[in-house]
């Protein structure tokens, strides 16, 4: 299969349809789930889709090492390339490596100021990212200022920003309680729900749309690939 077909037939097109056009440039999205349910492979799936469409990704982790994040990309890409018999996979893999930056800030608190520095450096040495993936943040009301600044950064860059957070389990009005205080800054909130043979993606918030439709997209826990459900 050729790269263009792969992206055109990606389950993420279905996700975009379910989300009335997707996350959209300049917006923040959040993936919430319990530990070990699959937040990282979902975010890596989003990032690979962007990379395959010639975008640039900056992946920032506050709790994982560079090697760990890179291993995820390598594994998910290899499985994806293998599953669709991707033409010229080695070259595409090399291109993807060049279009993606990884930053790790182990043990450091989340700071949009740090992110701005990283993005600036990325712009000076390569190109501005079109997608930011941010992992390892503990969501709570204290982050309101940082998230407001992050939203401003997303708009300045005209980039999509996907974040992930561990799910506390309690919900307030359909939203996890620790996410609720910052939900205004998030355009899309997706929950990962383990089912018998897959992990389903369910929208908890879809911009301002009151009718949150079913997304029909899931994560296959065996291959860590996003699939149509």
């Amino acid at each position, binding site marked *: 299969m050729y790269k263009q077909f792969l992206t055109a037939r990606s389950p993420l097109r279905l996700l975009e349809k379910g989300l009335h056009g997707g996350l959209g440039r300049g917006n923040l999205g959040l993936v919430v789930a319990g530990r070990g349910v699959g937040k990282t492979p979902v975010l890596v799936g989003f990032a690979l889709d962007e990379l395959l469409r010639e975008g640039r990704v900056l992946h920032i982790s506050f709790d994982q090492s560079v090697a760990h994040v*890179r291993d995820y990309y390598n594994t998910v890409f290899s499985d994806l390339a293998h599953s669709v018999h991707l033409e010229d996979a080695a070259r595409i893999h090399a291109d993807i490596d060049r279009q993606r930056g*990884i*930053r*790790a800030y*182990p*043990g*450091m608190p989340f700071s949009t100021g740090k992110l701005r520095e990283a993005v600036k450096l990325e712009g000076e040495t390569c190109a501005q990212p079109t997608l930011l993936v941010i992992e390892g943040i503990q969501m709570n009301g204290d982050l309101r200022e940082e998230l407001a600044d992050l939203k401003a950064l997303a708009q300045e860059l005209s980039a999509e920003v996907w974040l992930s957070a561990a799910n506390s389990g309690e919900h307030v009005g359909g939203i996890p309680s620790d996410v609720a205080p910052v939900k205004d800054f998030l355009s899309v909130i997706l929950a990962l729900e383990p089912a018998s043979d897959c992990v389903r993606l369910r929208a908890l918030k879809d911009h301002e749309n009151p009718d949150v439709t079913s997304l029909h997209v899931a994560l296959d826990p065996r291959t860590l690939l996003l699939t149509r459900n």
Partner: protein
Amino acid sequence: MLQDLSRLRNIGISAHIDSGKTTLTERILFYTQRIHKIREVKGKDEQGATMDYMELEKERGITITSAATYCEWNKHHINIIDTPGHVDFTIEVERSLRVLDGAILVLCGVAGVQSQSLTVDRQMRRYKVPRLAFVNKLDRSGANPFRVSEQLRDKLGHNAVMMQIPIGLEAQHAGVIDLIRMQAYAFDGDNGENVRAYEMPAELRHDAEAAREKMLDAVSMFSDDLTEAILEGVVTEELIYDAVRRGTLSLDLTPVFMGSAYKNKGVQPLLDAVTRYLPSPLDITNSAVDLSNNEAPITLSADPQKPLVALAFKLEDGRYGQLTYLRVYQGTLAKGSSIANSRTKRRHKVGRLVRMHADQMEEIQDSGAGDIVAMFGIDCASGDTFTDESIQVSMTSMHVPEPVISLAIKPVDSKSEINMSKALARFTREDPTFRAGADPESGETVISGMGELHLDIYIERMKREYGAEVRSGAPQVAYRETISQRAEYNYTHKKQSGGAGQYGRVAGYVEPLSDGEDFEFVNEIRGGAIPSEFIPSVEKGVRTAIEKGKLIGFPVIGVRFVLNDGQAHSVDSSDIAFQIAGRQAFRQACAHARPIVLEPVMKLAVESPTEFHGAVLKSVMQRRGNVIGTTEEAGFCRVEAEVPLAEMFGYATDLRSSTQGKAEFTMEFARYLPAPSEVQKTLVEKYAGRVKGEEE
């Protein structure tokens, strides 16, 4: 010979350069009374540390070769191999780890887990070496053993457990608190030789209790008895020691110790830990391959009564001839006995047998299983196995990486020419990653190795140790060629005019192999289209052709050559006719299989203060590097990247100037990747020009 093997420890001391491992070794030798005066690194007293005994090492302040030494502590015999810290010399580290039973991983208390620590740790994991961590330099500004311990967990994936906490840090560093005995230790005397136990300071009690609880929690995973004792409130020191030892031996636990070797603090408790937690040869299972039984694996037993099996892991040309460092795995090696080299099948008589202490030695009569000794006057190569001839076994081969860089060298005069040959003969025997040979076209001597510094060191050693002055050319990168698509071939070699004729036709296809495979010859001839006696001739011809590709004259890799048809002539077909047909067919097929040039790509890790992050990134990007990622922590950042080796010459100098000398880097071979088309074009044109010049 050592009688009680349970009291023997073969340990290595591995770390990042400048973490202070040579200083630590020096202190260990002092406290175990092997030396009576402490000398420092870099020859402050014009002598240099005992373990840094090569002249060049003393001058550069780094340890290049692994010097062996031994000492006694708590009625235990400890063999120590000091290992080099720079990645260009990792074959030395790997060789050492192969023969060791345990190791101390020295970490700088300020810089923590650095790039070389990652490499060394990966090597230790490969050889399943249990280790203790020693967080050194706690007297330095910015030292933080808690952070380093966390880094051991996060960066190296160790189940690191602090067995001590510091009493004061930086200038206030005064000693350590042992979390098992819950006692404070100070190191008195001019050289810290008097260990004084005293009641821990009240202000540290709370921290110590919290750290002990954490330690017990982690350690109890390895002992049900300890878990029960904790629940019943009857924990004994012995129960904890036993649990820590179990966890360490299974590689599931890394006990963390700390101090400052330079300020003589924390070394004696570390020695106690070596005897207490690291394995004896009896705790380790070593295996070899049985050469008389189709290389079937066999388990060796550390029994001095069994047939001898010993591994030569290091060679040195000293004042008294070749010195061979050996690890005895099974049986007994005795002076005057007869031994056989499993590789060459040659027999040798053991002349002098010595125990090494850096460059000094002690004569011994025999050496039993588990021990590390050296013998004189035996001609062998590094990695050879010796037996007493009653069995034919070989220790499993060590992983030896292929060289990635070459340099043409030319002696300046005839005296240097003779000495250069002697030096090269010795170096290539000592170091399997260093190769020397003659370029068949230019006739020049070409040396190859693992990096620029690796070759630089050998050129300097030639000059210093052998008086051989050489002029070196520009470094040459070890490119490769490969194909990128399947292509068919059908080649007939025919010479039937005058004299004996030649005839051979071969047909089939070539296709790319998956990553990491070199070459595969597949015979799919059915029905005798080519008589079976000529199939090896075709393969021989193809193997000749892959040594030199058509594009730039470098070896061709990653190709499957499938032979599925052909024709022979009853009179004119011969071995040579099919060799030529195979060779030409391969060249014909490759030309249609979109041949490409592969270049060696190095894994680069650069560490610098965060303010130089941008400068480091630019230095990588300017060299066609691909930045994999950046880690920022405690004011430092580590940039990991993959960079073509061809772009890395002179990098050390450039990096120094762009970061005010505050960045350091390590580099090792990662993989071969297709060279960009413009690079390939330049290389192809250059090669074509050279070939044309030679033809004219």
